[in-house]
């Protein structure tokens, strides 16, 4: 852990970006850690070598003249570049619109309808008439007898009407 921290500080030290406390800590660590001391020396050597790679050169002759000539021949702004720019702008707009549309559709969904008891039974693949039948069967015997009595009376009335007609 200390060596990992030391390596980060070594890199910062190369750029003179260490505070006094960090600098003191690193100095102390390097005294006791030969591997990190070697690392510090490697990094310093690398930085020196990299600085030696710097190329101090000027552009080829007539740079600005060549550039102005190119600018005169270049079309001011290509149509494709404009189309590309439009596309680049259209993509996020399109994504926002799709998100909004999905949100609106989600919110506008009709509320879930309350199913009637019969529908619930049908939904559960059961026969709703079965229940009615059970209710009917559960009816009290006196009610059933009354129903039979009324049915008998109706039959008698229809019989008498038939005789009268003759």
């Amino acid at each position, binding site marked *: 852990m200390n060596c990992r921290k030391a390596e*980060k500080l070594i*890199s910062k030290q190369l750029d003179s970006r260490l505070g006094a406390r960090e600098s003191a800590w690193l100095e102390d660590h390097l005294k006791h850690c030969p591997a990190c001391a070697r690392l510090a020396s490697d990094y310093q050597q*690398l930085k020196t070598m990299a600085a030696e*790679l710097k190329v101090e050169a000027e552009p080829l002759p007539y740079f*600005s003249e060549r550039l102005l000539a*190119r600018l005169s021949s270049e079309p001011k702004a290509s149509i494709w570049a404009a189309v590309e720019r439009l596309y680049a702008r259209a993509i996020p707009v399109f994504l926002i619109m799709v998100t909004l549309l999905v949100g609106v559709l989600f919110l506008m969904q009709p509320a879930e309808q309350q199913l009637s008891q019969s529908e619930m039974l049908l939904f559960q693949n059961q026969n709703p008439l079965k229940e009615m039948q059970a209710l009917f069967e559960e009816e009290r015997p006196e009610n059933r007898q009354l129903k039979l009595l009324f049915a008998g009376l109706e039959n008698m009335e229809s019989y008498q009407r038939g005789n009268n007609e003759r």
Partner: protein
Amino acid sequence: MEENEIVKLAQQGDKEAFSVLVRNYQNKVFGLAINIVRNHETADDLAQEIFIKAYQALPRFRFQSEFSTWLYQIAINHIRDYLRKHKKEKNDLRLDEIPEISAEGKEASEQLADSQEEEQRKKLLREKLEEMPEKYRLILSMRDIQGLSYEEISRMLKLSAGTVDSRLHRARRLLRKKLAQALGQEGGKR
């Protein structure tokens, strides 16, 4: 005339004003390019393309930053695009390519051998730099080769100082590892 006035004139299509800006910044833009691509002709082409892009984008420059910062951002983005497109390509003609020295030559002069060794190390360093991912290559070139300040790098790459720190650290670590491997040494202690 103040730079902003020249920029305003260039924005209105004054090519003479634009050429003043080009002359003021051509060496810096070219320097950025050549220290990354390390080839004179390629760097010259890149610098030309960077100024063309800047000219076309000039109407959109709103003076919210220095003109130089804006221009260098265009330059860095263009060079980055170039590196991405030419990842696998190697420049065959280098500005600082060192010709091979024969074995007899090496024996002939110790001084020459020393300088050759140094050149070999530099060549190896250049090769390893080219193998680095583009973001590490850019930051190493800007900081360790060209010696740009943290502030300049932060502005050009639009990164915080902390991110510059950590990216530089990772880049140096990777470069050291690559060099150690190439030199057949222990690949770092971690």
